[in-house]
């Protein structure tokens, strides 16, 4: 077996994977904390992910940088990121042709988050904003503060990724959001697209909750490789409302890419899910 191939019977060859042009919408190196210096843990996780990224033949990966908005509990780090914003760019310098970014915003700090949206999204190079479901920045997406930030992101031309879960037994934190809550938010902005990260985790309810809101797309990572998920999602939503996410390295390539490769879908639908939809959302050149 070569290091850059899945090379098992019944799985696509490297050339087939390359033809999918995989754009990963949910790459999570050091998702909660990039390292005290602002990047060391992040870079280690990127390296750890490298074999899987090569085997999957990914073209691009979107991750969620902390930019000093209080999205971690490390006050020193937050101060360092504010004082030295160039630290945010370290991973992009490491993988200049591969990495995309959606900044993690903090709805508990609207003024600073708005400023960051202007600085990092409107002026570039970030493509959108990530609304976390846990940690100090989590806020249920039906809160008015979230709407204020959504409007800022829309104005800046960015995309919106909202972490969502339906957890048996209820929310594990007061700032978590469910797909139904995201659908409620999205209803107010019918011209803008919202990404429902993890399809709600418990995707049977998640798909039902957002299926009526045509401007809500689901992202596929963050839960076990449960069979039947994508077949149901394509049936209920259509393949053009589904974005592939890897959740590497805290989840496995097998779990996340396997969801698409193992699903009973047409090749055209797999291609849409693995990359075309994300590129279209970002209005990126297909070539």
């Amino acid at each position, binding site marked *: 077996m070569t290091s850059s191939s899945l090379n*098992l019977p019944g799985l696509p060859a490297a050339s087939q994977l390359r033809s999918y042009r995989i754009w990963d919408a949910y790459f999570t190196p050091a998702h909660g904390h990039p390292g005290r210096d602002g990047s060391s843990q992040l870079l280690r996780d990127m390296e750890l992910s490298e*074999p899987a990224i090569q085997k999957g033949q990914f073209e691009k990966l979107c991750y969620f940088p902390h930019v000093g908005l209080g999205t971690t509990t490390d006050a020193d780090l937050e101060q360092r990121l504010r004082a030295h914003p160039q630290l945010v760019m370290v991973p992009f310098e490491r993988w200049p042709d591969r990495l995309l970014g959606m900044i993690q915003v903090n709805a508990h700090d609207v003024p600073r988050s708005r400023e960051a949206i202007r600085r990092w999204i409107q002026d570039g190079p970030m493509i959108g904003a990530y609304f976390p479901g846990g940690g100090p920045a989590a806020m249920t997406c039906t809160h008015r503060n979230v709407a204020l930030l959504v409007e800022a992101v829309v104005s800046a031309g960015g995309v919106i990724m909202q972490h969502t879960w339906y957890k048996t037994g209820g929310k594990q934190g007061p700032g978590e959001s469910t797909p139904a809550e995201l659908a409620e938010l999205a209803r107010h902005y019918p011209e803008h697209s919202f990404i429902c990260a993890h399809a709600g*985790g418990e995707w049977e309810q998640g798909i039902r909750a957002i299926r009526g809101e045509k401007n809500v797309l689901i992202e596929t990572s963050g*839960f076990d490789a449960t069979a039947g998920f994508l077949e149901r999602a394509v049936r209920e939503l259509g393949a053009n409302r589904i974005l592939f996410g890897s959740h590497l390295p805290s*989840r*496995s390539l097998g779990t996340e890419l396997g969801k698409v490769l193992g*699903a009973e879908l047409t090749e055209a639908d797999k291609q849409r899910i693995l990359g075309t939809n994300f590129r279209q959302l970002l209005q990126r050149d297909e070539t």
Partner: protein
Amino acid sequence: MSGSHHARGGVLVMKRRALLKQALGTGVLLPLTGPGATPVPCLAEASENVPWEIVDTNASLFAWPFRRLPLDTAGKIVAKMRALGICSAWAGSFEGILQRDITGVNARVAETCNEYPELTPIGTLNPSLPDWRADLRRCAEEHHMPGIRLYPGYHGYTLGESRFQDVFEQVAGRNLFLQIVVSLEDPRTQPEWLQVRDVDPLPLRSLLQSTPAARVQLLNARPRGGMLTELASVPGLYWDTARLEGTAGVPELARGLPPGRVLFGSHAPFLLPEAALIRVHESNQLSEQELREVYASNARRFLRSPA
């Protein structure tokens, strides 16, 4: 099912067992006639495209209780196995999770596995039910099953209880292996009205230390906290790969255990077998030899002999 059918099935099972034994000895599964007649790609056909023999130690037959699954018939799951180069799968029954007719559950597994040379039937026991010893006897003597699968979380007991210890001793006494289903799905996605905690495997320490010939495999375990440290040195305890997570989840588990303790498992058809296959090798941290061991060699050793 009639008694004569049982007897006929038993003969067929014995014939199939003999063929499988021969196949396992040579590393080649033989083409058979009948419903499962397609030759299975195994070691004899290994090439750059079929690099390894693959044994799935954690598959199940029949309907998942809570929704339809794409591979929830034996024909479909076997066709998928063939497409993916999986030579052999140890098949329990999803029917055994909630149904009380365990005798019928095991008979259907045995009968279905008899139709497909790739499938090895694994019996279900529910020690919360009266007369479970008769089910064990049938599994061993009539169905010639090599192992027993338990669902303690769904059948309402812990591994610290005497009824489990009784099962453990009886199963070991028959030189069968035991598979303990630690979880079936993420607790966060279970139905609200049927929430089942992961099984605590720590009571196995003393049981396995006092019964060195016993073989136990934990299925769908996701080691957390100090669990692995506590269990790493326990003799006769094996793990599967079905619900490991992280891009390096499999090598991390293998490094934390004595050699030979990690067996490939997919938890198909609830989980996608493609996911399990990729997960084993995606990090490039296991050598070719280690990959061969995880995909099949460890399972064959576990199947054949006491620890």
